[in-house]
């Protein structure tokens, strides 16, 4: 029982991170039509930059600055590069963003080398834990879950109540009509990249004390986040949360029946099964974020 609970907590924690990556995938996909496989690199960048910054400033400031820096990098990628590509197809852009993720990873290797780093635990230490029904959870788990919950809540309010958020939904529902309303749709696309960069970076910071940060952690996150996004239904940000939790839990529980080496394959197996049974995801997009997050 407490063993199962332990798995469940670790599954939910990783699942929450996949969920954030999935939300990023969906946000960018619904406003730009691009599947951004560099999404996982934002998580890596957030963690790595925060580790570096934290040598010069207090932890909360370092995290905020790392999130801002990553958002700026993401915005720059869109405004400086992706925007300039003419007439792209979905497949083109997948290749381009995979290329981008390789570039970012190599740049990270140059800047930070191969060493594994991590941020300190936000509260307590590695050994401090809270007991819940006999399972030991690290306080950092609560930080992760709290942060992801806050991200989802803030996004929900943003899309539902703010002018900018509604404009973003309008862009995703009908870009031409959005332009005709006076919305600067190119800037909206840049903003979407910035937001998804910021979300990824924040996830990278809260997870760093538990799973460590390393230059090459982005790839598997991108793939699992993508699996989560597809599971939930591409284009529907909040459905990515469900997808992320499913992938995270499946992965965590797989350890009890499969050799741990197969853990990474679980997400793919799940993705493939889901695509056979429900090709449009569990919660099909229905007008994507326009539908209301």
């Amino acid at each position: 029982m407490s063993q199962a609970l332990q798995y469940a907590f670790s599954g939910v924690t990783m699942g929450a991170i996949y969920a954030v990556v999935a939300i990023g995938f969906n946000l960018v996909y619904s406003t730009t039509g691009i599947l951004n496989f560099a999404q996982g690199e934002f998580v890596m960048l957030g963690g790595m930059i925060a580790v570096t910054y934290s040598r010069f400033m207090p932890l909360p400031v370092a995290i905020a600055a790392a999130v801002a820096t990553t958002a700026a990098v993401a915005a720059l990628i869109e405004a400086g590069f992706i925007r300039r590509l003419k007439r792209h197809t979905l497949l083109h852009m997948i290749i381009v963003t995979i290329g981008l993720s390789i570039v970012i990873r190599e740049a990270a290797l140059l800047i930070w080398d191969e060493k594994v780093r991590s941020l300190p635990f936000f509260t307590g230490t590695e050994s401090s834990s809270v007991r819940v029904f006999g399972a030991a959870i690290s306080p950092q788990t609560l930080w992760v879950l709290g942060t992801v919950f806050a991200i989802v809540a803030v996004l929900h309010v943003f899309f539902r109540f703010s002018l900018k958020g509604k404009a973003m939904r309008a862009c995703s529902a009908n870009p031409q009509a959005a332009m005709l309303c006076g919305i600067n749709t190119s800037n909206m696309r840049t903003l979407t990249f910035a937001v998804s960069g910021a979300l990824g970076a924040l996830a990278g910071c809260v997870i760093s004390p538990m799973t460590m940060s390393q230059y090459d952690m982005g790839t598997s996150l991108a793939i699992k986040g993508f699996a989560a996004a597809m599971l939930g239904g591409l284009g529907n940000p909040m459905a990515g949360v469900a997808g992320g939790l499913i992938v995270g839990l499946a992965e965590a529980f797989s350890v009890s029946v499969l050799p741990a080496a197969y853990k990474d394959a679980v997400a793919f197996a799940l993705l493939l099964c889901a695509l056979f049974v429900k090709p449009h995801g569990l919660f099909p997009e229905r007008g994507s974020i326009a539908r209301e997050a």
Partner: protein
Amino acid sequence: MLRIRNLRCGYGNLEVVHGASLHVERGEIVGLIGANGAGKTSLLNAIMGLLPPREGSIELDGVSIARQPVWHGVAHSLVLVPEGRQLFSAMTVADNLLMGGYRNPDRDQAIAQALDRFPRLRERWRQPAGTLSGGEQQMLAIARALVARPRLLLLDEPSMGLAPLMVKEVFEVIAELRRKGVTVFLVEQNAMAAFGVTDRVYVLETGDIVMEGRPDDLLHNPEVKRAYLGKGFRNVWE
């Protein structure tokens, strides 16, 4: 207010507007009629900046607006009610109107006025735009454009697919706009209805402006009669 000279535009290798020139003066209501595929929508899209012109000039108040981003025109009160309404169908009536006022700092007031003009929309306030009837959707499309406070309003076949009573309502709105000092450029296939509200009309045929005149004069032009008014028109008109 709007002056277009020798405008050419098209898609890929296909040119659909072959050097059109026209102008719309402040306070005027000018019509553009033409058959399906004549290039009317393409012309409007070129004015808005949705379709880049290949040649020629487009000036708003003497300033060139060719190749400007679409939002730029909207910020200068050049607004289009597009063909097929193009509402945000999953979003509420309220949010559609809000988006219409995206560039208008006085959007709350403009929305209130639009609701006074179209009380039906107030009843449908929280309903997704896609669930409105065709007539209500057209009203919403026009209201959304009005919330942007246009000085020059372009309308692309606002009467398309509407019952006669709704058509009448649409043209009443256009007549009111004149009293408010809004300049209107109206694309219509319903030539009869267009003649009723316009000061001047252009005729576009396969990408060329072939005629320009006052509605009264065009009405008696045998060419126009044959091509755009059909046999039964006299009965309707008289």
